[in-house]
């Protein structure tokens, strides 16, 4: 079997970068990464370079091992004799090379996920945060809208209400309720919303344009039976999102 050794070496060198790039991102699209090729390549190379620089510095400081650039270049050369000599050198240091590659891959898998969790935990990516341009998950718009991730920690509302107009038998109805869960389809689009305390009314029973003293007292909604109401996003004509906070009423307490 013929093996393109230089291509394999380049692949192995870039693999940690590709793993780290995919692990640090919060993306709502699962099927395909439609990022421009140039962006994918540049991000992968940047991540790989940073990880290798860190690991080489660590190996130099802790184990007094330095990169033998001549061996690496011979691995990438097209001359079979040079490749053989380089492979012999690598084989002589197989445990160290395996430990380097294995630990680097493990770190590329785990560390970005921890960084992502820290960004989400401390909301370093919210609007107004100093590091927002660097840390914002631009591939996850629904996360910011429906998880309240743009609110500073400690100022987050208590829950979200959703109102949607759905056409039923050629009559528009307004559904509203407390948002419990939301699900995305593989392309990253909102698929369905799970509501609690769902209510609905015909859109024709809208609030009056002019203030009416009795308007607030007249019930226009009627409850939807059941604990959870699943609203398919494809059925919604419009979607209204509101953030609700509950504050202790000190005047009445």
């Amino acid at each position: 079997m013929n093996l393109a050794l230089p291509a394999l070496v380049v692949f192995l060198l870039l693999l940690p970068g590709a793993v780290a790039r995919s692990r640090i991102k919060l993306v709502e699209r699962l099927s395909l990464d439609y990022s421009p090729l140039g962006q994918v390549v540049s991000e992968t190379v940047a991540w790989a370079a940073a990880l290798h620089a860190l690991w080489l510095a660590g190996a130099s400081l802790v184990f007094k091992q330095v990169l033998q650039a001549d061996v690496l270049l011979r691995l990438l050369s097209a001359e079979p004799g040079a490749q053989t000599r380089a492979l012999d050198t690598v084989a002589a240091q197989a445990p160290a090379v395996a430990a380097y590659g294995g630990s680097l891959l493990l770190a590329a898998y785990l560390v970005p996920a921890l960084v992502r969790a820290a960004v989400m935990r401390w909301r370093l990516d919210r609007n107004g945060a100093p590091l927002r341009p660097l840390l914002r998950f631009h591939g996850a718009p629904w996360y910011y809208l429906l998880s309240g991730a743009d609110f500073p920690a400690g100022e987050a509302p208590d829950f979200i209400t959703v109102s949607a107009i759905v056409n039923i038998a050629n009559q528009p109805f307004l559904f509203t309720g407390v948002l419990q869960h939301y699900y995305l389809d593989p392309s990253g689009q909102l698929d369905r919303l799970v509501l609690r305390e769902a209510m609905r009314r015909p859109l024709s029973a809208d609030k009056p344009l002019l203030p009416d003293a009795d308007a607030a007292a007249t019930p226009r909604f009627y409850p939807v039976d059941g604990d959870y109401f699943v609203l398919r996003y494809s059925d919604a004509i419009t979607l209204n999102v509101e953030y609700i906070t509950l504050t202790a009423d000190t005047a009445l307490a």
Partner: protein
Amino acid sequence: MKALMSQLAKDVLADPQAKGQLRAFLAAKSSRAVAANAAEAAAPTVIELRTASRTLRLLPRVVPSKSV
């Protein structure tokens, strides 16, 4: 994915009476906005949440989004 919901909101949804008051708030908030625009604000909905030791009186209100 889980939507934003605080423990306090979960407690409200777990209490039948508080849940009913929350539902009343949801149904009335748009009408109340009309009245508020006309400087005829109705009395705000109060949610009473009974805990083991005391009763919490909560005022629900809509807060502006921070997203751009």
